[in-house]
C-alpha cells in the first residue's frame, strides 16, 4: 500500500488536513526558532554585506515555518496566505538590498560592512 508512506500520504491527500497535537507543533516552532537565531547570529557576526542580507532571508524562512505550522495547528489558511506576503516582502527586500550593495561596492571596491562605520554618526 503506497499510501501508508506518510510523506506520500501528505502529498496525495488533497482534503482537509487533520488537526495536529501541540506537542507536534512545538517541534516545528523549535526548528523555526533555532533557524531564526542562526540567521540573527549570522547577521551580527559576518562582515560581508551580501551574507548579512542572506541571513535576513534565513530569518524570513524561519518566520515562514512558524506561520505555516501555526496555520496547520489552527486549521486556518491565513497562515499560508501570510507566507505569500512574506515572500513578496522578501523579494522586494532582496531587490533593494542588492541594488544598494552594488552601489556601495562601486564606491569603495569592498563588501566589508565595517568600511562604512563612519555612517554610525
Amino acid at each position: 500500500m503506497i499510501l501508508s508512506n506518510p510523506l506520500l500520504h501528505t502529498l496525495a491527500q488533497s482534503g482537509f488536513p487533520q488537526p495536529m497535537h501541540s506537542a507536534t507543533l512545538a517541534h516545528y516552532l523549535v526548528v523555526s526558532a533555532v533557524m531564526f537565531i542562526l540567521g540573527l547570529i549570522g547577521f551580527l557576526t559576518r562582515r560581508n554585506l551580501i551574507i548579512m542580507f542572506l541571513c535576513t532571508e534565513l530569518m524570513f524562512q524561519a518566520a515562514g515555518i512558524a506561520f505555516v505550522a501555526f496555520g496547520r495547528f489552527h486549521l486556518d489558511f491565513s497562515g499560508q496566505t501570510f507566507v505569500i506576503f512574506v515572500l513578496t516582502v522578501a523579494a522586494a527586500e532582496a531587490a533593494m538590498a542588492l541594488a544598494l550593495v552594488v552601489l556601495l561596492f562601486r564606491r569603495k571596491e569592498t563588501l566589508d560592512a565595517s568600511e562604512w562605520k563612519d555612517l554610525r554618526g
Partner: protein
Amino acid sequence: MPSGVGSAGFHLDQIINPSILYLLCVLGAAGVCLALPRKGVSPQVFGGLLAGAIGGLAMLFLGLKNPEHLPNIYFYVFSVVALGAALRVITHPRPVYAALYFVLTVVATSGLFLILSAEFMAFALVIVYAGAILITYLFVIMLATQSPGEEQVEVLADYDAAAREPIGASVVGFLLLAILTTMMFRGPTGWSPPPSVSERDTLAAMPRKIEAALRNAGTLPGGSRIRTHDETGHAMISEDGLTVRVITPDGERSIALPDGLTPTNADYLGFNLMRDHPGSIEIAGIILLMAMLGAVVLSRKQVQIDEEEKMRHAARLARGEEAGGSA
C-alpha cells in the same frame, strides 16, 4: 475537539525539561561560536559537529515527553538538513557556497511545508526563493567580487575570513533562543480556535470544479448542468455533503458526488487569499512595483565622460549636422 488545541495552555515542562533546554542552549552557543570563521587555527569542524550534536539532542529530548505525538520521520530528515545548511550559511567563509547552502535550506524548508500539507507554499518557495531570489544573490556576488590577478592564487577576502564578535553574538543569540522557547509555551491561555473553513462550503463555491469532476466520472447526463444558488452562485450540496443538485433536460435531480472530490490546498489558499485578503494583494503589488523602481534608480550607472571626450563628441555631432544640412 482534539486535546491541546485552543483551550488548555501548554507549558514548557510538558514539552521539555527546562534545565536541559537551557544547558542545550549554552552548549549550542559554544558550538556556533566555535564554528564561526576566524583567523589562524580554526576549530570550525569541531564547533560545527558540537552544534549539530546539540541540535540532535534537542530533537531527542523534545520527543521524550510526548512519545505518542511525534512528528513523522521526514520531519527529522528535513529539519536536520535545513538547520545544518543554515549553520553552514553563516559559517562558510566563501559567499558563493553560503548562497548555495541557503538553496539547500530552502529546499529542506519546502519539504517541511509538504509535511504540513502546504503544497502550494512548498512549490512557491522553491520557485521564488531558490529560483529567483537566490539567482539574484549569485549575480550580485559575481558582480561585486574582484577577480584574482594572473599570478595570485584565489585568496579569501579579509572580511570573509574572520567573523566579527563571534562570542558576543552567540551569547546574545542563544540567550534570545532560551527566552523565546520559554515564552513560546506561555502564550495567552484559552485561545478559541478560529472558525475553521468547512470543506463542504469551499467545494460548493466551485460549481465548475464539481461539474468537471462529474463529467470525468461519467455520471453527468448530457446537456445538463450544476444548479447554482441565485444570489451566491454556489453549487447546492446536500447537508451530508454526498449529493449535488443538477439540472438535466428532464428536470432537476440530485447526483452523488464522485469519491475523493475535495478542495485542494491551492483551492483553500486561493479562497483565503482572494476572498479574505483582497486589499493586501494590491498593497503587495505596490510594494513590488516600488522595489523594482527603487532598484533601477539605485543601481543606474552614471557614465563618466571626461571633458575632452565630451568636446569631441559635440564636435562630431556638429559636423554631422553640417553634413546633413548641406546634403
